[in-house]
């Protein structure tokens, strides 16, 4: 794989890497984690050199202290949820981080289950929590949500943002999902054939309002809640979620993941500070 990347990431940044499959996104993450070695390269993190092929220096993955969440989660099948987290503890590290993470990712009820008996979204939460047990400074996420449906994805994006802020992490997310990338990250780079190129812009949220009096907002349906006489539909617009009330007949042909346009009257829009 030909990969030629120069990259500087600020502390506390949430960087997203996008690009078509085969563009080298995952390889880049694995290079940072130390799971593959570059023929030629230099990686430094907070003053520590991780890789310097010129001086034949290469820190093992064990010594880099990164949290890595694999695309297919890589939970240990022989351990329960709690044991998966406890396995990650460093020698002599206090147990309470495990409980804290179980609370944050809402895994309390599932802690005695084995991975085989968890749904995809639940496994994902365990993988995220396990990657954070050692309190890494750098969190690497490899297509963490690609196997999940739209509703579950929105929920997990929320967990990811939550831990990113709570633990002041520097996070690198690999994803080919445009919306996800724009929702979560503070900076985006795109890879193409192993090189960095300009990321494509997301589809505009506000569609042209040709009629002059209507706004058209484009978004994605996350969840449909059934009320007694009306439906509440959660729509993701840009990075924000909007709750829209509709009549049952309008909601009946919608499902999570659909792209919808919200149209509303705006003859005299008012801007408030």
């Amino acid at each position, binding site marked *: 794989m030909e990969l030629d990347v120069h990259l500087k990431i600020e502390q506390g940044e949430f960087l997203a890497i996008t690009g078509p499959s085969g563009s080298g996104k995952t390889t880049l993450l694995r290079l940072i984690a*130390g799971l593959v070695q570059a023929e030629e390269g230099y990686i430094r993190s907070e003053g520590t050199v991780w890789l310097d092929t010129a001086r034949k220096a290469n820190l093992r*993955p064990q010594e*880099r202290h990164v949290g890595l969440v694999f695309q*297919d989660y*890589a939970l*240990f099948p*022989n351990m329960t949820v709690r044991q998966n987290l406890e*396995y*990650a503890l460093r020698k002599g590290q206090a147990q309470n981080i495990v409980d804290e993470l179980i609370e944050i990712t809402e895994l309390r009820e599932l802690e005695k289950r084995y991975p085989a008996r968890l749904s995809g979204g639940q496994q994902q939460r365990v993988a995220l929590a*396990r990657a954070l047990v050692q309190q890494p400074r750098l969190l690497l996420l490899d297509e963490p949500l690609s196997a999940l449906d739209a509703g579950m994805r929105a929920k997990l994006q929320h967990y990811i943002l939550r831990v990113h802020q709570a633990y002041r992490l520097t996070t690198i997310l690999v994803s080919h999902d445009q919306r996800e990338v724009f929702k979560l990250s503070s900076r985006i780079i795109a890879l193409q054939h192993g090189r960095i190129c300009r990321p494509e812009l997301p589809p505009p949220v506000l569609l042209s309002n040709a009629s002059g009096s209507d706004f058209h907002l484009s978004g994605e349906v996350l969840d449909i809640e059934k009320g007694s006489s009306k439906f509440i539909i959660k729509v993701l617009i840009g990075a924000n979620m909007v709750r829209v009330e509709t009549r049952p007949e309008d909601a009946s042909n919608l499902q999570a993941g659909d792209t919808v346009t919200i149209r509303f009257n705006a003859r005299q829009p008012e801007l408030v500070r």
Partner: protein
Amino acid sequence: MALEFWQTLWLTFRLAAVTTLLLILIGIPIAYGISQSRSRFKPAMEALISMPLVLPPTVLGFYLLIAFSPSGWLGAWLEQALGLKLVFTFAGLVVGSIFYSLPFMVQPVQSGFENLPPNLAEASFTLGKSKLETLLRVQLPNIKPALLTGIVLSFAHTVGEFGVILMIGGNIPGQTRVASIAIYDEVEALNYGMANQYALVLIAFAFFILAMVYGINRQMLRAG
């Protein structure tokens, strides 16, 4: 007669148990090493370990006999330096059986390691765990069916061994005379009844052990 019958069976199963125990210690590291290896000598290593599967046991027995014989340099050294006599002794049978049953331990365990998703070990490494800890706490517990298959097949195969033992062990009651040799010996002496007793025990044992392997593997497949 009855005493000798039980003595022979006891020796047979003791040989199989000792061999299997040592094979666990020897075979698992070999299987792990081969499964991780990307060396161009890997096919040669695999071929070497699998040779007892295709060679007549007498070939292995013959060369072991030559190597261990006190007149050869290896046999002489073993006897002088370590006080170890490997020809016509129980210890010799154990060494021969280890060579002979090695593929039965290595092959299932190796394919167990190879079928394990590599990212389990990688996840463990990024969590700061050493290769040894990863092997003991993640990889081995997740290839239990393969381990069990290896253990049971090594044990059973050692019980069924004939040619190697005849070559380097001979037929000393209580020391090197195992059930398969006893059958041959009893038939030579026209003691068909006695041969039949040994043979029936081995048939029952073989059926029981194979049924157990298949049963447990099926259970583990369901559970997994």
